[in-house]
């Protein structure tokens, strides 16, 4: 039985994106060949959810006859099953399957729709707002409080933390070949960057989170700064988030450092230790002026003085140059995404698509984030060290450092490197995932929620779009990351910081998302990837090139074109298979007659010679 279960998991994971899309009756639905998937599931005869493979540790809570009010077709009669992990719906009224497979983690809000006396067809039921750009509506029979039990169960299991229950990640019994918790070893990553060295040292001052409770335990700081210096600097930085190294340029020794805002306040306080510390950072590679990128708009930085924050003034920091990057705060981003959802779900705005898109400002925010990161990357590659902060240094700062690192360092563009980048700059340095996403929390109107990480992934997508050969991973990886940002199935994005994860034993009690990814990497590989180690990627941050990520934001709409695979990719794979076929044929011919033309053969196959591994995978590609 265990064996069977594992198998079923593998089957589902062959199509993780698809798993939650409304498939039918559109067979050519996003990224998936649902029919074959269903077939294999059926052949496995999985219980208890009929034709969907349950996860180890997943338990069914309730089944119910229900009507799904599909916005793209009409009302569909069927059965809904709710487990401690997901909501699963399957229609019973027609042959063309309509299914929904929604992890409860994506649910933002559950509401009752209509009352017992409401008139009109299907006016009594539930409305579910999701975090992943869709809403679901169900109708029930208008008798005997038919929705009461399902509403209560849904409310409880979708928001377990509000009901004193555990997130599914702690209940899951999934097992994978790979252990994703091992992908990031801070010391190893710093060693890869060439650290520590004579300019920068590793400090364990935060090993018990005593210096800063939202920072990781291992930090890299200027060689010349003592631990005592660090403690004094911490008093002058918001939430003690002192400037520490994020990335080191091996050739020119310029660095990207990150921190929070200085506690200047209304009176314009100064702190000699902080000023000295920044100068030490600057001196490490002989940068003439340390560039401080304040991600906020100028006015916001000024306004922050009122609450004790502020920015580095000219007088106090004479060897520094301050640049404001004009990126707006989390509330603006949240509202922007809300507007975007309004124009794409359920119906794509028809008559004024472009101006509607513009009025959401979503792409303009993307443009600002990208151009900020370009400036950071440009400065560093020209040999000057930089410091990046916003207010607390965990939202916009994380976006800017990680994007500029992605531009500067090709390692982060590999499948493994990207995981390291996320673990380091986002998870390690305390992007408040729990607050921004609201995992398992019923308070849907929480002002702390904001799609900052989604915005970052969108920026990465924009880069992959502009440089289709520069990234080892594909779009699917980005979508899967976003799906599990909400799903609560893995521990990776849970909690606000490392100290919280440690005290909750996340690494022991939950599975890492990277375990899933790294157990079958072939799904996430971009076939066009061409490694170019020394190349700095500068995307064009112009609205002419920025596009709405249709395959993510509008993926629930069956009418918007979703090609299973881009035709280019498909053709490329076909050709790879054909090449291997020819190579094999030639090899056979050569074996049979051992002709002297063998030299020619090797010549023609060298530039992109197929590794044995490729041989196996591509020969299976149907041609």
């Amino acid at each position, binding site marked *: 039985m265990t064996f069977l279960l594992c198998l079923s998991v593998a089957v589902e994971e062959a199509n993780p994106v698809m798993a939650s899309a409304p498939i039918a009756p559109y067979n050519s639905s996003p990224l998936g060949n649902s029919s074959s998937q269903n077939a294999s599931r059926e052949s496995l005869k999985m219980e208890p959810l009929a034709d969907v493979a349950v996860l180890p540790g997943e338990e069914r809570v309730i089944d119910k006859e229900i009507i799904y009010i599909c916005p793209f077709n009409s009302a569909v009669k069927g059965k809904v099953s709710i487990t401690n992990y997901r909501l699963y719906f399957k229609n019973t009224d027609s042959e063309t399957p309509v299914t929904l497979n929604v992890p409860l983690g994506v649910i933002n809000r559950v509401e009752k729709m209509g009352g017992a006396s409401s008139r009109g067809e299907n006016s009594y039921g539930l409305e579910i707002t999701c975090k992943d750009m869709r809403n679901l509506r169900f109708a029930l029979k208008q008798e005997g409080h038919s929705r009461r039990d399902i509403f209560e169960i849904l409310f409880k299991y979708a928001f377990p933390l509000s009901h004193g229950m555990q997130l599914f990640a702690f209940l899951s019994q999934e097992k994978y070949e790979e252990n994703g918790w091992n992908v990031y070893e801070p010391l190893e990553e710093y060693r890869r960057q060439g650290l520590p060295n004579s300019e920068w040292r590793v400090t364990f001052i935060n090993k018990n989170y005593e210096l800063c409770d939202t920072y990781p335990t291992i930090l890299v700081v200027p060689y010349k700064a003592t631990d005592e210096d660090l403690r004094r600097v911490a008093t002058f930085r918001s939430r003690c988030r002192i400037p520490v190294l994020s990335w080191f340029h091996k050739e020119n020794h310029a660095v990207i450092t990150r921190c929070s805002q200085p506690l200047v306040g209304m009176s314009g306080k100064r702190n000699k230790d902080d000023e000295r510390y920044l100068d030490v950072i600057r001196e490490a590679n002989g940068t003439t002026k340390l560039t401080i990128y304040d991600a906020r708009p100028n006015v916001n930085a000024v306004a922050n003085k009122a609450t004790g924050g502020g920015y580095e003034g000219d007088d106090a920091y004479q060897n520094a140059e301050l640049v404001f990057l004009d990126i707006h705060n989390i509330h603006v981003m949240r509202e922007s995404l809300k507007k975007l959802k309004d124009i794409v779900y359920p119906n794509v705005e028809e008559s004024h698509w*472009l101006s509607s898109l513009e009025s959401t*400002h979503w792409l303009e925010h993307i443009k600002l984030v990208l151009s900020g990161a370009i400036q950071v990357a440009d400065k560093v590659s020209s040999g000057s060290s930089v410091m990046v902060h916003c207010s607390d240094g965990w939202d916009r700062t994380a976006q800017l450092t990680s994007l500029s690192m992605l531009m500067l360092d090709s390692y982060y563009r590999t499948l493994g490197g990207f995981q390291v980048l996320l673990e380091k700059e986002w998870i390690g340095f305390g992007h408040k995932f729990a607050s921004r996403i609201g995992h398992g929390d019923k308070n849907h109107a929480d002002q702390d929620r904001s799609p900052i990480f989604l915005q970052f992934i969108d920026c990465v997508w924009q880069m992959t779009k502009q440089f289709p050969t520069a990234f080892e991973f594909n779009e699917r990886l980005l979508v899967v990351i976003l799906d599990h940002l909400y799903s609560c199935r893995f521990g990776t994005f849970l909690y606000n910081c490392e100290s919280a994860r440690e005290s909750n034993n996340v690494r022991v009690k939950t599975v890492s998302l990277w375990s899933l990814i790294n157990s079958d990497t072939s799904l996430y590989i971009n076939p066009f990837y061409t490694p170019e180690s020394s190349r700095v990627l500068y995307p064009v941050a*112009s609205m002419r090139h920025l596009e*709405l990520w249709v395959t993510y934001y509008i993926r629930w709409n069956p009418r918007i074109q979703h090609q299973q695979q881009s035709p280019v990719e498909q053709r490329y794979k076909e050709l790879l298979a054909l090449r291997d076929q020819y190579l094999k044929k030639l090899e056979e011919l050569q074996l049979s007659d051992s002709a002297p033309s063998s030299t020619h053969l090797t010549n023609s196959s060298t530039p*992109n010679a197929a590794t044995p591994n490729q041989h196996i995978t591509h020969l299976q590609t149907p041609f």
Partner: protein
Amino acid sequence: MLSLGTGGAKSSKPSFVSYVTPEEIKLDKDLPKKEKHPDLLPGEVVFCSANPILKYTQDDLSQRGVFGTLFCTNFRVTFLSDELTLEETSKTFKNKLYGENDIPLMCVDHIYGVYDEKRKLITGSLVKNKYPSKIIIHCKDLRVFQFCLTFTKEEDTKKIFQGIAHHCLEEKSLKCIFAFSYAGTPSPEMQRKRETIMFESPEDWTQEMKRTKAKCRLVTENENFELSQRLPKYFVIPSALEDLFSYQEKGLPIWCWSHHSGCALFKASFPPMTQEEGDFQMHLDTMINAVAHNYLYSVKTEDLSESLPTILDIQQSYNKFKQFFLIDNSTEFWLSDVKWFSSLESSGWLDIIRQCLHKAVEVVECIDKDNTNVLVTEEEGTDLCCVISSLAQIMLDPYYRTLMGFQSLVQKEWVAGCHAFLDRCNHLHQKDKECHSPVFLLFLECVWQLVHQHSPAFQFSETYLTVLSDSVHVPVFSTFLFNSAHHRESVMKAESPPAQSGTLSCPTVWDWSVQFDSKAQNFFFNPLYSEKVKHEKTVRKPHKPKHQRQLSLPSSAFKTPPKKGFFKEETDSLKKMLRVKRISRWMGSPDSLVAATREFYESWQQRPLDYHGLLLPCLDGPAVHVWMQRYVRWIPEVHIQGGGSMAVMTKLMELLSQVQDLKNLLEQRDASQAAKFDHRPHRLFSFGSSGRLSSSFPFAYSRNRSFKPIIPTGLMQSLMVTDNLSSQEDEAS
């Protein structure tokens, strides 16, 4: 001097921002005064020239200029740099007729003069008064040239300015077009041309009818344009029509294409149908009846002049649209970036494209789903009729998605079909604005949307479409020079040199060797094209599998079964239908209409895609795109170094040539054993240089590109977040 950080707009903003002030340029007086002359085409004559002229370059955003000589000939305005230009020779995609510093006269769109920092449009009256210090030339292929005239002697300035203004802007006669002076020898490689069906002979039409199994009647009575000068030389009409001479000037339904079911697409030039003249009504009834007779007594008529934008709307919209791409400098670029999407929308151009595609889908639905004959009409019968009928044919018939098929289609519907290219493209700079309209470009735009959405279905590439759209403004080809078949023939006869017996032979645009060598022509082919597997015919079962997107959708998917019935009933219902049609024209209210086509699209989308079957475009907002290659190729700010779709294409090409090599190798080995050997020369898929290409490849080359990124300016102006959200703190605490 332009500074990048300030974000542009000042209170007293000059409409022209200079990159370099004249003082900054050191005039190298020791330059060897070697007279340089452009390489002239056979038949080309220099009118005037001036030296030294400073040409501003935008390459690498370095904002510098190059000195050289400006010439105006009967073919082009050309700039010859004093510096050695190396890149021209190494270019893989080089046009043999004109280079990157040449502007064919016909390609000039607008000329601006800069007078005291103010940019003014040059028109006739301005020419005589004052000479500008700089001229800015906007081209129809969206290039922008800027020349500084202040270094030249005054009389030279006067000469060159007047010369350029005169030859580019003044109304001229057809005879003055370079094509009639061009004495290029017809290339020996006429093979390509021959493969394209020109529809200039009865055989071509018979062949086409045979190919589509049409049961219509070929008309040869107009061979000498006795029936009408507005009708094609040869054309095909419903077989039920007789006695052509009595109908001639009232418009005839002209056959375009037949569906395998038997129903067909016709187009006609009819005056607006509201006209209630009894005589004309009778004519109309006869015509519609004749079309209905073609197959099962069913017909749908569509008056395009009522349901689609007028050619004037099209012209105005395009004029707005193209302005967004004619960018003089970086400041302007970033300023316009702010309101990019709403600017695009305000031009309405993408919406016109969507409307045309939508109309074509409606036509396709009638033909393919309902198996109904369709008659599209408009007043001229040669504008939107051509757009819609050509688009419908591309969606219905995979043959037109091959390169030769597409060229034949353009010949059939547009060239032989008497589209008034000369008037619509305004080659003669006529002041009368009513008849100018980029109708053919609109068609290419629509095709590009299809190519963009379903690339593997097309044998030609977007580069091909871009080059074709450019070629319209190259005054060498006969293809785009005339208003009708009659016009073409009469002019060609009149302009023939008397010594020779034959008529003048301008090359057609399809003779691509006139512009590009064979290596460059490889860019016309789409490496993604999935060619039809040849042995499929022998394997194919009599019944098409239901799940395939075939030419015909299985009727079970639709509620209305194909019409079948007896003669009598059908004619009755036909009469009723016709009466209704004359009032309501098409199927119903626009809303239900949109819903109907959407259903058609969705049912098509459900089926697995067959690139050799019916092809429909997605017309939702996010699916309609700007033809980036055509419109932004010359704008350096938009070029992605080593990126864009070109990066992927390059990899694909590399692999393709590898596979090709291997295949050849295998075939050579096979050849020694078996007699079967493919002698066709294999197309060479390679971009030549393996260096890092820009996303604008193969058009604009950027030289000496540094690795400096382009940092947007004026960012904050864009985001006027007015609510108080922006001033809130990130954390509530």
